[in-house]
């Protein structure tokens, strides 16, 4: 909100390059400072971060492409340039890498397709139930959020115990309800998918709900009142006020949930060990194992770019779906 106010007073320091001969003045007024100060100071502030950012974000993003163009075995001295061979192998049905890779992409696809809708809808329902203030609301919000702070290792180890087919709590209670009490949750499919998705929903529901809740509270009440005056019931209000009002939040949550689900690793690594067979071995699991256990880094890097292209295409699609069809006309009218 105060961006313009804040930047107005600063001179635009773009005209001159710094030169060593210019004296550095410590004692400057707002508009009379030397140009050199304006040019170097911001970069001094940025330098420590940019060092990390350049070294561990930009450099690896570029280096990854380079690696993927080589037969890069970490344990071998020679890493011959092979052009696009690593990519070609991934897309050649008979090759040794393509089967496991596309199997893992399939696992990631199944997990994403099952978990994302639940992680978009259930937290929204919870947030809607919590959008009105009532005693104990903040306490409940904290409880829903609590699993998230535990981290994937703790929750996976915990749920492997709860889902143990002989002594686990889940089968015990299912038995008490007269349901089958011998489901092998972590060693058979489709039960393993139910387990992985269910645990992930339990783990991250609170995170999404909290973001929804903040979004709901930013929708002006006047919009609901105007809708009510026009005779809109709760469902129509939800469709025509809540959903449009949440549009930016929805697009944000959809993207981060998609990316998080598509990057699923820990649950599968610790709860099912990728099994049965390789059925729940996700793409990330496959990439990490290929590159960092078997040290076939060229192939693993190529896999990571293929996965990334998928993810970016899906993200772009989500942005397209949630694009602003009309400028926020209604909202502006109400707020002004």
């Amino acid at each position, binding site marked *: 909100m*105060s961006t313009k106010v*804040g*930047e107005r007073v600063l001179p635009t*320091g*773009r005209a001159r390059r710094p030169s060593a001969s210019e004296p550095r003045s410590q004692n*400057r007024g707002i508009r009379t400072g030397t140009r050199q*100060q304006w*040019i170097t100071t*911001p970069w001094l*502030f*940025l330098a420590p*971060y940019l060092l*990390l950012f350049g*070294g*561990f*974000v930009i450099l*690896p*993003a570029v280096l990854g492409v380079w690696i993927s163009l080589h037969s890069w075995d970490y344990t071998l001295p020679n890493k011959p340039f092979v052009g696009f061979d690593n990519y070609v192998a991934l897309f050649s049905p008979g090759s040794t890498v393509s089967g496991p890779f596309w199997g893992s992409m399939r696992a990631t696809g199944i997990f994403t397709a099952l978990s994302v809708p639940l992680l978009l809808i259930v937290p929204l329902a*919870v947030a809607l*139930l919590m959008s*009105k203030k*009532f005693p104990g609301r903040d306490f*409940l919000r904290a*409880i*829903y*959020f*609590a*699993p998230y*702070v*535990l*981290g994937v*290792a*703790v929750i996976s*180890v915990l749920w492997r*115990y*709860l889902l143990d087919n002989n*002594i*686990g*709590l889940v089968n*015990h209670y299912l038995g008490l309800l007269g349901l089958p009490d011998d489901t092998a949750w972590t060693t058979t499919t489709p039960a393993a998918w139910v387990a992985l998705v269910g645990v992930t929903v*339990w783990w991250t529901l609170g995170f999404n709900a*909290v*973001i929804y809740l903040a979004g709901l*509270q*930013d929708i*002006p009440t006047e919009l609901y009142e105007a809708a009510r005056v026009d005779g809109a019931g709760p469902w129509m209000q939800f469709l025509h006020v809540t959903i449009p009002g949440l549009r930016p*939040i929805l697009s944000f949550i959809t993207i981060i949930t998609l*990316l998080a689900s*598509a*990057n699923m690793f*820990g649950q599968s*690594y*610790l709860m099912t060990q990728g099994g049965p067979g390789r059925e729940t071995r996700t793409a990330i699991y496959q*990439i990490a194992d290929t*590159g*960092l*256990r078997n040290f076939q880094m060229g192939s693993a*890097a190529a896999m990571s*770019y293929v*996965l990334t292209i998928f993810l970016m295409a899906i993200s772009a699609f989500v942005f397209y779906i949630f694009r602003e069809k009309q400028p926020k006309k209604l909202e502006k009218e109400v707020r002004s």
Partner: protein
Amino acid sequence: MSNFTTTTTTTVRAGARTRRGSGSITRVVVLGAIAIAFISPIIFMIVTSLKTRADATAIPPSWIPNPISLQAFASILAPGTATPVLQWFANSMVAAALNATLVVITASLAAYPLARMQFRGKNFVFVIIVATLLVPPVILVIPNYLIVSELGWLNSLVAIIVPTAASAFGVFFMRQFFVGLPIELEEAARLDGANRFVIFTQVILPLAKPALATLALLAFLGNWNDFLWPVYVLFSPEVQTLPAGLSTLQSANAVRYDLLMAGAVVASVPVLALFIFLQRFIIEGVSRSGVKG
């Protein structure tokens, strides 16, 4: 900390809130039932960690340890085992604390000129940083392993502390906060002749304490819970962090659930304690990441 845009709407909503009371009982019942489903696994984890080996595998499972036993903790915390849980705890503490410190320092320093100064390349830098928020981290894993290996950081805590400190989220988060601060205080300090660094440390940072605390907490939690990277970068038991260690513990004790739950409790205590005492900061930090995004 507060939301700068919606002061008028919240006062209006306060009126609307009190009007509706009828549906609130069913709402509390439904939400309460969900809450029980959410908290009971965590309680059962703690309960099991206090059971004896036999009690932990007894059928039917019981919610009360009989007898209450510290055997599991004694066993995993004993020195000289192949799964040095205490060492992992210390490693995790050091790594998460240093990582959070590094994130807070570098992100707030970088965010300040992006919020408050005009310079050539500013928009470019900001756009690049924000754009990497959407880049799946998977493409960085393999090359970062090589970079870390080249730096001699493999199998060392430095690998857990430094590379993940390049937090684009941190820069974005702090910039949004700085942009929202009133400019007048800085102007006054500038008229008094203070230079940018003095203004930053004496004027801006004290005002930014809540945001810095939130960012530090989120960075600490993120680092404490990070799993994939430590699993592959730390191979010796004595240098592992708790999440990687839990994986080792699970491989070593597949069905010793008393030990596994004790390990999980050790890994949870600091983050649960932080959460219980500072949950407002954590939850508001997370919710603002979406609203302002």
